[in-house]
């Protein structure tokens, strides 16, 4: 990779890339804008007036936000942890050995993300029915972790594939047993991939509606809360306030993850 310096960006490319990004972001700007509208139930354009009161309202007089927020955080956190464990195990197993059926199994592991969420949802739901498992936080987590595993698995498998096998042997050569090697060598090497996978898993879980609809009983996760707020608005700007809040709170972790994972790529690849 050299000589970027004399390669100027073709104009057409620049324009279509920027247009594409605008397409991605103008609706987001709208979400921001309508967190400040004076309307309460349904939105019109242009907004009749602007106010910051909804931030106060959301903070102090809408206690119904907190429970779903907490539940979503809880579900996403646990699903992500489960996904990290199971996804890493699967990635480690499938990248270290070749055995009959390995290809099939690797295909199986991407299935939950490749099949529409509604199928995952209904299938799990009917399984819960058959086995008389009552709905609970755990059924939601089970549903989410099922597709989160894939996200972590994908990230981890890609990193394992690039992990220089000699590092593991070098560690054993220097006296470290399997566990020590895992802790001191493998984990730091795949750490950034797990971080990236974990973040994406968390994001997907935190925002998942469809699978949740089928695997939740009475519990209201944040997206479910949002859905009912949007369909039957009480104070519609409050929904936007919550969305904006989530947006801002996640900005920094995403940026941090970006730099961390980049560093990982860098050092991961420099061993040659």
């Amino acid at each position, binding site marked *: 990779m050299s000589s970027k310096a004399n390669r100027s960006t073709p104009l057409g490319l620049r324009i279509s890339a920027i247009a594409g990004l605008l397409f991605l972001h103008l609706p987001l700007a709208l979400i921001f804008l309508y967190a400040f509208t004076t309307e309460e139930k349904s939105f019109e354009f242009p907004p009749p007036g602007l106010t910051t009161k909804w931030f106060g309202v959301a903070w102090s007089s809408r206690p119904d936000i907190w429970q779903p927020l907490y539940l979503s955080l809880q579900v996403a956190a646990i699903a992500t942890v489960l996904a990290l464990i199971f996804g890493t195990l699967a990635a480690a197993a499938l990248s270290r050995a070749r055995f009959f059926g390995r290809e099939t199994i690797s295909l199986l592991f991407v299935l939950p993300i490749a099949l529409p969420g509604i199928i995952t949802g209904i299938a799990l739901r009917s399984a819960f029915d058959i086995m008389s498992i009552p709905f609970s936080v755990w059924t939601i987590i089970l549903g989410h972790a099922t597709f989160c595993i894939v996200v972590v698995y994908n990230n981890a498998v890609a990193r394992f594939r690039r992990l*220089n096998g*000699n*590092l593991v*042997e*070098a*560690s*054993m*050569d*220097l*006296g*470290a*047993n399997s566990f*020590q090697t895992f802790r*001191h*060598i493998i984990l*730091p*090497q795949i750490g950034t991939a797990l971080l990236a996978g974990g973040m994406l898993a968390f994001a997907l879980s935190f925002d998942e509606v469809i699978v949740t609809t089928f695997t939740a009983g009475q519990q209201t996760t944040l997206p479910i809360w949002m859905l009912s707020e949007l369909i039957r608005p009480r104070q519609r700007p409050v929904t936007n306030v919550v969305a904006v809040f989530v947006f801002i709170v996640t900005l920094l972790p995403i940026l941090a993850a970006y730099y961390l994972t980049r560093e990982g790529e*860098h*050092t*991961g690849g*420099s*061993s*040659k």
Partner: protein
Amino acid sequence: MSFMSPAVRFQNVSRRFGSVRAVDNVSLDIEPGEFFALLGPSGSGKTTCLRLIAGFEQPDEGHIEIFGETADGVPPYRRNVNTVFQDYALFPHMTVGENVAYGLMIKGVGKAEREEKAKSALAMVKLAGYESRRTAQLSGGQRQRVALARALVNGPKVLLLDEPLGALDLKLREQMQEELKSLQTSLGITFVFVTHDQGEALSMANRVAIFNEGKIVQVGTPSDVYERPTSRFVADFVGSSNVLSPEFAATHGGRAAWTSLRPEKIQIAPQNALVPAACAHAKGIVTAISYQGAVTRITVATEKLALIATTPAGTDVRKGDSVSLIWPKSAMVAMGEGA
């Protein structure tokens, strides 16, 4: 532990991968303190041999002993053997110092002590002061030395090196060859060294094993294998050689056997030059001249076969000249039967 037992002993060791016999019934003793080189073409089993010693592979057949103790089933992390990997395999998430101290940390050596030891190991390879560098900031030669320090700090009884100089450019390689050699001499550790560069093997090793297709075809001192190759394969593989057919050898004062004749033993003389009694000769026409700096390589087509001679630079033969090739009969080395 017996002081008489070899550092490494292979007893009829075989290692197969599917249908490939990577190492095929190899028996070998490497003595303590030797600088032992494994030489052979790509895929001939050199790396597999090292991996068997390190414990990354287990023999399918046969036994390996290290200093008289069986290595059967002993995992790498329980062998007092260390490896310098071809690509160094430095841990990219650790500093130079942490890399070197890794083995000690695993052993449970305290922080202060292992930092001290890492420091002196780095000093030994002339990298004092590099402790806190990132490995990505090192040049190839520096990495190689870190890998060496990381292995040596554990005080191995056998050090395995798999083409450690392969990735370096010529000048750096020459310099590292000298450093390695003097380190080995001063530490007295057994070095087992894989290379595909014969010059390296010949100049550095006490003994060389030549591999071909998983088998050892010859073991001996560098001059053994260079000057007395026992097979066409060795003659051809180690340096360049003219291989004379039994007939040609017989009619030129040698034995009726496949015979090796090194190019540098052949002198180029005018067509009608006198031939000393102890020498053989052949007439031919110069077909190619290749300048190589210190020497010039001249190809001469004789009636029967093309011979290559190397002469000091500046010889004024030209393409198309008719010349006489003269060589001492003693320079013809007969090799094994069908070799």
